[in-house]
C-alpha cells in the first residue's frame, strides 16, 4: 500500500479514537462513540497487513489464527458476564493489554538487537516495566473483585520495605538493561516488575480497587504510546497517549467521587493506624422485623427513600423494588431512590440496574441532593447496601472507607435494612447503624423479602 495513504488512514483511526472518547463522555452519544472506536480499531487491524514496512505474507496465517482465537476467547466472555462481575472483566482485559504491550516490546527488542538506539531501549524498558506491573496488578484486582482472595488490604510486617526493595530492584535492572543490553536483564526486569505489580495492589482496600483498575488502565495506555515510539507508529503514540491522559483524569474523578485522594488510595494501608474495632467485644442486640412490620411502617409513611446497593444487584431485585415503589406511589406515598455514586461494584452500577427496570429517571436522586431531605423522610429502605450508609466513614478515622461521603440515612425517622445476615459489606467493616434503635432488619435475600413486603402491603 502507498505509504502516504497508509499513514493517512492511521491518522483517521486516531481521530476515530478521539471521537470515541468524546462520545463516551456524554450519555446521549456514548454508544455511538464506542461503535466509532470499534470501527476505527477494526480498520487499523485490517490495514496493518498492508503496512509498507512488513514483509508480505510472513506469518500471516498464524497471525490471523491468533486473532481468531482471541476473538473466540474475548467475545463470549464479554457477552456472558453478569453485570455484577463487569469490573473484574474490565480489569482482566486491561491486564492482557498491558501484557501484550510488554511482549511486543520484548520481541521488538530481540529483533532490533544491537541496532537499538538509546531512545528505543529506554522506551522498551518503560514498556516492559509498566506493562508487566499492569498485567500482574490487574490479575490481583481480578482475584480481589471475584472474591477469590480477601478484599481487605493485605499488609504484612515490613511490607513497605519489601515493596520498596522490589521497586529499587526493578529500577536497578532497568539501568542494567540500558547500560549493557542483552536478553537476560530484560527478563529479570519483567520478573521483578510482575512481582512489583502484585505487591503494589495487595495493600489496596477492596473498595478502592476500581480506582486502581482505572490507574492501571492509564498505565497501559502509556506503554502503548511507548511501543508506538519504538515501532514508529504515530497511531499507537496518539491512541496510547489519549488513553493515558484521559485515564489519569478519570482516575482522579473516580477517587473524588469516593471522597478519597489518589495517594491515600494507593498507600493508605501503610499509613493507617491498625483498626481498634472491638469485634464481638460486647454482644449487641439488633431489632429484626417481619415483612408485615415493614409493610405497616411503609404504609403509614409520607415519604420513603429507597437506598439500593450491591445486594440489590446480587439478588436481581431491581424489578421487585420497582413494583414496591409503584405500589407505594399508588397509595400516595412519596418515593425516591437515593443513589450513592459508588453503590454496587462499579460507578453508575445502580443507575444501570434501575434503568434496566425502567425506573423513571426523575426518581433517581443523587447523593448531594437527597442528603438534605432525610430529616423529612419517614422511612429509608436500604436494599442490599451497607458501606454507602455506614456512619463509620465519618466517625472512625483509619477504617477503609473513612472520608468517603455517605448517605445520611440516620437522619430519617426509621431505617429498614434488607440483607441476608449480619455480615459486613465490601469494605469488611461493621456498621453501627444496624444496632441503632431506629433500625429494623429484615433478613433474607433482597428479592424474596421485597416480594413478601409487596404481598403484605397489598393485603393491608
Amino acid at each position, binding site marked *: 500500500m502507498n505509504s502516504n495513504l497508509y499513514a493517512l488512514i492511521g491518522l483517521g483511526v486516531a481521530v476515530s479514537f478521539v471521537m470515541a472518547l468524546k462520545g463516551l463522555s456524554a450519555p446521549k452519544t*456514548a454508544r455511538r462513540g464506542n461503535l466509532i472506536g470499534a470501527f476505527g480499531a477494526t480498520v487499523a487491524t485490517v490495514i496493518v497487513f498492508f503496512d509498507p514496512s512488513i514483509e508480505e505474507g510472513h506469518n500471516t496465517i498464524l497471525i490471523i489464527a491468533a486473532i481468531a482465537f482471541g476473538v473466540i476467547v474475548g*467475545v463470549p466472555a464479554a457477552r456472558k458476564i453478569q453485570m455484577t462481575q463487569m469490573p473484574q472483566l474490565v480489569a482482566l482485559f486491561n491486564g492482557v493489554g498491558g501484557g501484550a504491550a510488554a511482549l511486543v516490546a520484548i520481541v521488538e527488542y530481540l529483533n532490533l538487537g544491537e541496532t537499538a538506539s538509546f531512545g528505543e531501549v529506554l522506551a522498551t524498558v518503560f514498556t516492559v516495566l509498566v506493562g508487566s506491573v499492569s498485567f500482574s496488578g490487574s490479575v490481583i484486582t481480578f482475584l480481589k473483585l471475584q472474591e477469590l482472595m480477601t478484599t481487605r488490604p493485605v499488609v504484612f510486617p515490613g511490607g513497605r520495605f519489601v515493596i520498596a526493595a522490589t521497586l529499587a530492584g526493578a529500577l536497578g535492572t532497568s539501568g542494567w538493561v540500558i547500560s549493557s543490553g542483552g536478553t537476560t536483564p530484560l527478563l529479570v526486569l519483567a520478573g521483578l516488575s510482575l512481582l512489583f505489580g502484585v505487591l503494589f495492589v495487595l495493600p489496596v482496600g477492596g473498595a478502592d480497587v476500581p480506582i486502581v483498575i482505572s490507574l492501571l488502565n492509564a498505565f497501559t495506555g502509556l506503554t502503548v504510546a511507548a511501543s508506538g515510539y519504538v515501532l514508529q507508529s504515530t497511531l499507537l503514540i496518539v491512541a496510547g497517549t489519549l488513553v493515558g491522559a484521559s485515564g489519569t483524569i478519570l482516575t482522579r474523578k473516580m477517587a473524588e467521587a469516593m471522597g478519597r485522594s489518589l495517594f491515600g488510595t494507593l498507600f493508605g494501608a501503610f499509613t493507617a493506624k491498625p483498626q481498634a474495632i472491638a469485634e464481638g467485644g460486647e454482644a449487641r442486640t439488633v431489632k429484626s422485623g417481619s415483612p408485615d412490620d415493614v409493610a405497616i411502617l411503609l404504609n403509614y409513611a409520607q415519604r420513603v427513600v429507597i437506598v439500593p446497593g450491591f445486594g440489590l444487584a446480587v439478588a436481581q431485585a431491581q424489578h421487585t423494588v420497582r413494583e414496591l415503589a409503584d405500589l407505594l406511589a399508588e397509595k400516595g406515598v412519596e418515593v425516591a431512590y437515593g443513589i450513592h455514586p459508588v453503590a454496587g461494584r462499579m460507578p453508575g452500577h445502580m443507575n444501570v440496574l434501575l434503568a434496566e427496570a425502567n425506573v423513571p429517571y426523575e426518581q433517581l436522586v443523587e447523593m448531594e441532593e437527597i442528603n438534605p431531605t432525610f430529616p423529612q423522610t419517614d422511612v429509608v429502605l436500604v436494599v442490599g447496601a451497607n458501606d454507602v450508609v455506614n456512619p463509620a466513614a465519618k466517625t472512625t478515622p483509619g477504617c477503609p472507607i473513612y472520608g468517603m461521603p455517605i448517605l445520611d440515612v440516620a437522619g430519617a425517622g426509621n431505617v429498614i435494612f434488607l440483607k441476608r445476615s449480619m455480615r459486613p459489606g465490601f469494605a469488611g467493616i461493621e456498621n453501627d447503624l444496624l444496632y441503632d434503635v431506629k433500625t429494623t432488619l429484615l433478613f433474607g435475600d433482597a428479592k424474596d423479602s421485597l416480594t413478601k413486603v409487596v404481598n403484605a402491603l397489598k393485603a393491608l
Partner: protein
Amino acid sequence: MTTMAILTIFVLSVFVGFEVVSKVSTTLHTPLMSGANAIHGIILVGAILVAAEAKSTLETTLAILAVVLATINMVGGFVVTDRMLEMFKGKGGKK
C-alpha cells in the same frame, strides 16, 4: 519523524485526552474506563507488526501470544462496553 515532532504529538495528545473526558458524569465512569481500555487494545497493531517480522521461534511465539492477548483486550473491551451502554438504552437521552 523527528523526536521533536513525536514530543509535540505526545503533548497535544495529552491535552486532547484531558479535555475530551473532562465533562463526564459519574454514571459514565465505568463505560468510559472500559472504552478507553478497549482503545489501548490497538497494541494489536503493534503485535501484528512484530509478529510479521519475527524470525526465531521464541520471537514468533511471544509475538503470537501478544496478538492473542491484544485481540482479547480490544474485541472484548468494545463488546463489554457496548453491553454496558445498552442498559442505558432509552434512558440515555434524559440526562
